């Protein structure tokens, strides 16, 4: 689908949507949002870009295969689950910094867990869609 309007639009939409997806991820603990929805929104951003510019070009922007996001995401989640073990606490215990960080807000192990989910979701969705799209 070659459309100058869509191509121009996605140039601006991609970063905005990605920023929005990250915003959803960060606010998830207090307001509607979270890693899962955030990941889906980010995936949609890339899918939109691939519609306008072709999947090959989107893959170029991504640099790495979306598949590689899956182990990274799972790893981050797993670490955040097992991290409390180092302090002699049972796994999945929520650990939080005392003071909020500017812009981001409260940072705790749950946020990293959500970040892992976010990355896994992007990895999974893009892997499935792009593999099918590129299969001829």
């Amino acid at each position, binding site marked *: 689908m070659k459309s100058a309007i869509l191509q121009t639009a996605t140039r601006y939409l991609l970063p905005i949507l990605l920023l929005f997806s990250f915003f959803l991820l960060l606010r998830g603990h207090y307001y509607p949002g979270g890693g899962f929805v955030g990941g889906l929104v980010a995936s949609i951003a890339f899918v939109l870009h691939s519609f306008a510019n072709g999947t090959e070009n989107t893959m170029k922007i991504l640099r790495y295969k979306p598949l590689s996001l899956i182990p990274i*995401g799972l790893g981050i989640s797993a670490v955040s689950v097992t991290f409390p073990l180092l302090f002699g606490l049972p796994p999945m215990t929520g650990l939080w910094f005392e003071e909020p960080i500017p812009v981001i807000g409260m940072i705790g192990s749950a946020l990293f867990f959500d970040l892992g989910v976010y990355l896994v979701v992007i*990895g999974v969705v893009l892997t499935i869609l792009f593999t099918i799209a590129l299969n001829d």
Partner: protein
Amino acid sequence: MLFTVLTGLITSSLLVPFGKLMKTKWSVLLPFIPVILFLFYLWHVPVVANGTNVIQHLAWVPSLGVNFDFRLDGLSLLFALLITGIGTAIFFYGRSYLKGHIYFDRFFAYLLLFMSAMLGVVLSNNILTLFVFWELTSISSFFLIGFNNDSKESRNSALTALSITGLGGFFLLAGLVLAGNIAGTFIISELFAQHDKLVNHSLYPLIIGLVFIGAFTKSAQFPFHFWLPGAMKAPTPVSAYLHSATMVKAGIYLLARFTPILGNTELWNTTLLIVGGFTMVFAAIHALFRTDLKSILAYSTISALGILTFLLGLGTTEAFIAASVFILVHALYKATLFMVTGIIDHETHTRDLTKLGGLRKVLMPVFIAAVLAALSSAGLPSTFGFIGKDLIYEATLHYHHNWAIWLTALAVITNIGLVAAGFMAGIKPFTGKLPQAFEQVHLPYKSMWIPPLILAVLGLVFGIFPGITGDYFNHQTAIAIAGENLEMELKMWHGFNTVFILSLATLATGTIVYFLNKPSEAKLRAIEQFNHISPQYIITKIGAGIKQMSAWYTNVFHNGYLRSYHIKIILFAELLLGYKLWLGGPVRIDYANLTPLSWYEFGIAAILLGAMYLIVTTRSRLTAVVSTSVIGYCICLMFVFYSAPDLAMTQFTIDTLTTVLFVLVLYKLPPFINFTSRGVPIRDAIVALGFGIIISLIALRVLYEPNSTAISDFYGENAYLLAKGKNVVNVILVDFRGMDTMFETVVLSIAALGVYSLIKLRLKSSEKE
């Protein structure tokens, strides 16, 4: 103690990336892992010998009662020392045995995994953790037995071993959970106090039946014994490790561990006596008919395991002492004999007794090790085996029942068989004339013949100074099995009594049997004609039946057509939900409690109906897909109206992506042609209508069911207090039920990998063609 279990697990996984390095001279580091662990447990000997139990506690999944509880008592220590000690010998031996093998690194990864699992089994103080490690031994032994994966036989026997021990594990889990629930604790050291409660419970026979199946499958007791001879397809270091000190002894460990918890009843003792007694005689006689060295050792191992089960069945103090000593005796001589067999196989490339002979001329140090082990297994005075056998006879003779004389007779017959089998495996290949073909045979690396020699010499040292091992290891082991204090003193010389005469008679008769029994192909065939009534044949048949059944099931229920899956799933749900609805009586609708309808809800309903009409009537796939997503967006709007923004967002994004996915796939499909007959749409319409009606009825029913808000109240109250989050939905996802989310992401990843590999794999094969 946790670190000893983790060391193996971690190094095992490190061998995946650093495996190449281990194929070089760095592999010399590998044997030092068991050495360090062995020293660690040796260091604990004085502490445990004083009667102290070392306990370590670490929470794992505390809410389910699953924790890393480790406990080191006499029984655990003896096994831990055997696992790491014999493990050390095997690591040195295996490094030379498999030098240059392409899967050298993999072998040690499996072996380390197995060693950790075994340590976990014998150290766990929690029966659920024990079970986890128990299963891990089954799985890792599967890899070890099937190590020569290019041989079909090897793969088959690995599968048999896994099916039998895995099946047993399944029963064991049921037994353990039952016992734990009745006793109210899963901690072994707390279960000791619950003995009376468990034994008098009406489910007691079921519990011990389940535990027995677990132990008997693992320890190769009749009728589950046949996986063990099959497992001889493994490389010899594996057989030496699995069948002398570890895998098969896990079942014995389990029985010994549960003796003070579930034992000391008529049912427990009689079952063990019968199964153990039959197994030991059956296997000892079987061993004499074999011509393959490893086969002989396999059957004599089964027989030895039978003796141990039998001793635990006797249930007297003397029997426990005998068992605690015999575990060590057997581990020492059996590991030696296996390693000797491995050397013979490695150097002459045959294990056939009819072809081997005269090897003493070329393999002198190996011969010494073999003779020492064979004599210990025969129970010659001054060997450790002598003391072991004395104790067994003492236990049977002093049994408080008029069966004593018969039980002794059984033990004597078994031991005669074992004497002869030990000589066949340890002495026969070395005596007689050296065939010309073997004149060029030379000694292998030192690291191959020194470990068996050390173990064999230990058998002699312990035999001459039994006090050392008795005071330091076996005494506490026997106490742990009995669950109460007992006196014990090991002596080399018991005086000239009935036991001594029996011992000598056994030795003499065994030697005569050895000289009379010439291993030959004819005898092997003679015993093979009974194969069609053997448990192996019967169980294999049952296995084949299960396979056929699953093939039928797969063909009927998993035929690969998406539409057929859909209709089956929906029909099943309709039946189940419909039945449940019908049970609940008629549905009443309380119009007063319903929220009034608003105009935009009518609007959405109209759009929904229109979209549905389009889906059903259109001849274009694209229109159908787009209409489906319209329905999705309508539902999404409903979520917004009823203030569920999280759900709405997720529904919206998911719907968008599914449509994209659909379009991508549809793009590649051939044009739509209507093949189905007129009946099919009618059938589908009926199923769909039924489902819609049932779901609506359920929705109405829910309105007036007394609903409990306890769960949502809990989350609402605690989301901020415990998890510092204000969005309850998200807090549930990432915190309260975070483990679920974790596994869901894993499932998603697997799905993505599935799609990826399916499509990529097909591309590759088309490239090949």
